[in-house]
């Protein structure tokens, strides 16, 4: 009897497996649009805070991106700045003072930012941009004014706020509201790329009367974006609803948007497959799922504006010798590693940014011979290692060189073992992989309490090489390697104050060359975003920054072409 039941279950199982795969073959899982006008966006972890000034995590920035809007917004495809709460701006001759004219200003001056009318129709779906003369409003109907920006920015810069983002706003010297709709920013040094950094959520406006202890954990708080918060159930969901007071509310395609945190990597994919989520952010798809996903129409991959590398402690032997660092880099077959993990190998540190050509080669003279230290060349690597005092991997005292590599339990945790094998083969040296907790890794990075190499994922937060290079000036908090080079500092400052964009990019490439000559890290790969999006979702774009484009453009296409 029991056997018969069991066999019938198995049979039914096999049958339905066939049936469901026949129906959904082209897609990964269910493709039935939700009954109401609401989409569910799945991300990897629970936000710690929704206070724009304090938030640093991707899932927080994603949610805040639906709730708040800054001076400028991002073009959904190019990420170029477009009109947000500001419609026009003026900048002084040396790019140290920016004046923004907000929505509602009677006679805005200066450069007009492109508005929604400049977007492809997929994002506008027939709607027209709101006129600049119409003032923006908060989600309770009150008019948004320049003083709301002044309050938020001063709060960001105030040490008492203890914002982890304050170092990213170090360009800002002072801010003021000139009148109701004119906001002015003084910068510490010329910053021609200032508009590009403004999309970051900590530059959002805040209303002084709404900000009090614990305000962002309240069930409701005022915001100024296309959506406003309806409920936040920790570890369960955050529900946001269309903000009727948003200046382009008619363009907002969804009534509701639900953010769901799912931290278990397999569940993360399964929830989407079962149709319980419509979009997943793509930051945590386990690598072993990729073969099953490739070829599905709702699976996409996109480059991420990040670099996965190994920081080197340049203050401690043996890696305090730059020749050893060159040898390690040249003995690492990054193409092999990247191919295995479905990523893009990286010879240099800065990820692909519009207008930027990274250095193709960095030539260095060692004992009269010129080497390209970015090249994978085991023979030359061995030569350099011999010059560094480790012929055939063995030092003068007869001990074999041993490089510890600290790493965390991340999707890229196999890399240290691969490198161990490569260096054993190419340099005849030993590697000791050391697994550590995230917190321990962060602490070791900051305090330089490590020897050898340490895993380091660097995410750029605005689409400009500066977002990477800002890690290595002598006074940077994020350095993590002990690398200090006055020439690098000076070159970076000079490059960043260059007003001509093409000239600036050329100079930034020189800055990166200078960095790589010091080789405080071994760049390994650029990871990719692997995300899923149901075929009825329209107007959605992921960005290299890991947060999707503004949810304001997203809508459900109930007549999606299933063929």
């Amino acid at each position, binding site marked *: 009897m029991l056997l018969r039941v069991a066999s019938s279950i198995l049979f039914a199982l096999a049958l339905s497996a066939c049936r469901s795969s026949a129906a959904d073959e082209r897609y990964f899982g269910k493709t039935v649009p939700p009954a109401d006008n609401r989409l569910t966006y799945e991300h990897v972890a629970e936000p710690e*805070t929704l206070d724009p000034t304090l938030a*640093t995590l991707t899932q927080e920035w994603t949610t805040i991106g639906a709730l708040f809007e800054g001076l400028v917004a991002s073009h959904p495809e190019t990420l170029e700045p477009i009109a947000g709460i500001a419609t026009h701006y003026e900048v002084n001759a040396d790019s140290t003072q920016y004046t923004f004219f907000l929505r509602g200003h009677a006679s805005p001056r200066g450069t007009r930012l492109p508005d929604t009318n400049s977007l492809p129709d997929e994002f506008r779906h027939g709607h027209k941009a709101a006129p600049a003369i119409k003032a923006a409003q908060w989600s309770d109907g009150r008019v948004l004014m320049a003083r709301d920006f002044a309050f938020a920015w001063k709060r960001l810069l105030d040490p008492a706020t203890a914002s982890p983002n*304050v170092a990213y706003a170090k360009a800002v010297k002072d801010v003021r509201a000139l009148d109701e709709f004119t906001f002015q920013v003084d910068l510490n040094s010329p910053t021609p790329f200032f508009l590009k950094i403004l999309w970051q959520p900590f530059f959002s406006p805040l209303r002084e009367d709404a900000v009090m202890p614990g305000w962002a954990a309240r069930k409701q708080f005022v915001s100024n974006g296309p959506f406003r918060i309806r409920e936040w*159930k920790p570890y369960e*969901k955050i529900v946001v609803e269309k903000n009727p007071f948003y200046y382009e509310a008619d363009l907002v395609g969804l009534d509701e948007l639900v953010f*769901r945190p799912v931290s278990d990597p*397999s569940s993360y994919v399964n929830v989407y497959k079962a149709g319980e989520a419509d979009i997943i952010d793509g930051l945590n798809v386990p690598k072993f799922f990729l073969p099953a996903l490739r070829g599905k129409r709702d699976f996409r991959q996109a480059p991420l504006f990040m670099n996965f590398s190994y920081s080197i402690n340049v203050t401690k032997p043996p890696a305090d010798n730059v020749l050893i660092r060159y040898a390690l880099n040249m003995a690492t077959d990054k193409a092999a590693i990247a191919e295995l993990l479905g990523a893009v190998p990286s010879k240099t540190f800065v990820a692909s940014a519009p207008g930027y050509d990274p250095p193709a080669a960095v030539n260095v003279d060692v004992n009269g011979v010129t080497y390209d230290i970015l090249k994978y060349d085991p023979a030359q690597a061995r030569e350099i290692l011999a010059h560094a005092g480790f012929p055939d991997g063995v030092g003068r005292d007869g001990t074999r060189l041993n490089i510890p590599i600290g790493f965390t339990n991340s999707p890229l945790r196999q890399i240290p073992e691969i490198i161990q094998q490569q260096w054993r083969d190419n340099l005849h040296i030993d590697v000791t992989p050391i697994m550590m*907790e995230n917190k321990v890794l*962060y602490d070791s990075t900051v305090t330089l309490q490590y020897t050898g190499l340490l895993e380091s994922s660097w995410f750029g937060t605005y689409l400009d090489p500066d977002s990477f290079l800002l890690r290595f000036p002598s006074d940077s908090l994020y350095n993590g390697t002990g690398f200090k080079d006055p020439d690098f500092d000076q070159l970076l400052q000079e490059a960043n104050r260059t007003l001509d964009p093409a000239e600036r990019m050329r100079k930034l490439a020189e800055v990166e060359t200078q960095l790589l000559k010091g080789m405080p890290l071994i760049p390994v790969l650029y990871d990719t975003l692997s995300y899923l999006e149901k075929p009825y979702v329209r107007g959605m774009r992921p960005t290299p920054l890991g947060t999707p484009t503004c949810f304001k453009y997203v809508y459900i296409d109930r007549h999606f072409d299933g063929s």
Partner: protein
Amino acid sequence: MKRFIFRRLLVMGPMILIVLTITFFMVNLAPGSPFSHSRALPPEVEAQLKAKYGFDQPRWKQYVRFMSRIVGFSTDEAGNVSWHPYPDFGESIKYRDRRVNDIIKESVPVSAILGLTAYLIALGVGILTGAFAAARRGTWADSLAMFGSMIGIALPSLVLGPLLITLFSLTWYVFPPGGIEWAVEWGYIRIPTLRTLALPALTLSMIFIAYIARLTRNGVTDSLRQDYIRTARAKGLSERRIVFTHALRASLLPIVSFSGPAIAFLVTGTVVVESIFSVPGLGRYFIDAANNRDYFLILGITAFGAVSLMIANLAVDVIYALVDPRIRYE
């Protein structure tokens, strides 16, 4: 009996203080701090935060401050001391703006309902299976039931959960693969829909079904050899009545003693199942709190777990006396 319970409750206080003292110092010994961050904090910002949570004070002062909050004293920003009859675990460090007490209040009912459902399933299915196996001991049905329970013990929820998801969520779209929806929400009391509760509860109950089935079978098999069963048989009672009424009742004691810690464990949140099925219970907070060095949250959840376990054990002892008249505590 009353004196016994009173004595046990009296001992609980010092025991919890010991547990918390050990946890406090262990947590502080762990490398890394709540403020270590992939984006390093400027030193002045970190100093601000440390001052906010009192971490700039010497360790013993932090300890005294924490312990006085546990017994109900709290100090506001002006330095006024007040007392209230419940412990105050302070603020979560990771979840800025949220209090540990609130986090526990929000998540415990979720874990508790999941855990109790799983326990009831385990109790029902386990006892029936065990009694059935004992009644048919030595037959293929007995072997099959015990083989099944062996699998239940051997199969961790880490494997069983995804297996059930594959079957019931991805192949047949019957139950969602994760997340909880609420049928009733009444303040902190929230009751999930059967649809969303089914898979996590089943996964969680499996190992307990297995244990309870084995305990029951052994207990009933033992009882069936007793003299009073022979008497019952001699009276001509049906085998079913003998097993399910007489033998079973006498073999419930091991299950009672097993149930105390089991319920405490189930109610305080299970990390693996809550994480696989995205259940917003205490277990997920606990693992994140430990990873994030969220000191006050770790201490709060540990204290809650310790109290639950002690109360469950006390309940077991009391129930023992009720079930078995031979046991007295005076």
